[in-house]
């Protein structure tokens, strides 16, 4: 048993990176490994409410994020400073996520056995 931490730093709708990371994440979770997800930097844009990727003919990411609970993912965290720098607010997110301060990130990462760059 290993504690996995997926650190999501890429913006959505630019290639398939975010979807591929979520596929990997769900695979790990399906094998009953503890999984946490941390959204940092441009990765926080994946959480924004009201996204319409269908306008560009792209598939939405939000249903995948909403399904993570069903896969037994321990939780979603978002760095508060990343939100503020990008003009986003916690109430403008599509999903309930826990806030974490930048100063707490190092300890959060150090507590994982495996860190996946999502």
């Amino acid at each position, binding site marked *: 048993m290993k504690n996995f*931490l997926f*650190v999501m*730093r890429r913006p959505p709708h630019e290639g398939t990176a975010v979807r591929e990371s979520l596929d990997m994440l769900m695979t790990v979770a399906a094998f009953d490994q503890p999984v946490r997800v941390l959204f*940092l*930097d441009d990765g926080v844009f994946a959480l924004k409410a009201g996204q319409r990727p269908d306008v560009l003919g792209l598939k939405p990411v939000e249903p995948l994020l909403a399904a993570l609970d069903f896969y037994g993912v321990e939780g979603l965290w978002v760095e508060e400073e990343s939100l503020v720098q990008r003009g986003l607010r916690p109430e403008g997110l599509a999903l309930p996520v826990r806030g974490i301060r*930048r100063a707490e*990130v*190092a*300890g959060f*990462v*150090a507590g*994982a*056995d*495996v*860190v996946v*760059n999502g």
Partner: protein
Amino acid sequence: MGVLHLVNRSPHQSASLAQCLARVGDGDAVLLLEGAVYAALKGSAAAPGLQEALARVAVYVLAPDLAARGVAAEEVAEGLALVDYEGFVELSLRHAPIQSWF
């Protein structure tokens, strides 16, 4: 046993080095490789941030990636340590977990 942070993008093209340094913990290590080795040049715009980080973390630079880019050891800023591939493996064994900022 601190975290080993891997950064591979030039600081002049990507914010990933600064984003990494903003989240390192005391006793962590940062390894600059591929395009990120340009951050190690004396006088680089990234140098002040790296010098500040040295108070809390060790910063390593992958020597083969410097050589490939024509950067001599004398051109590397004070306080940064050069490692070869064996040193990279050793760092990987001495730290956990490993976080990539690619």
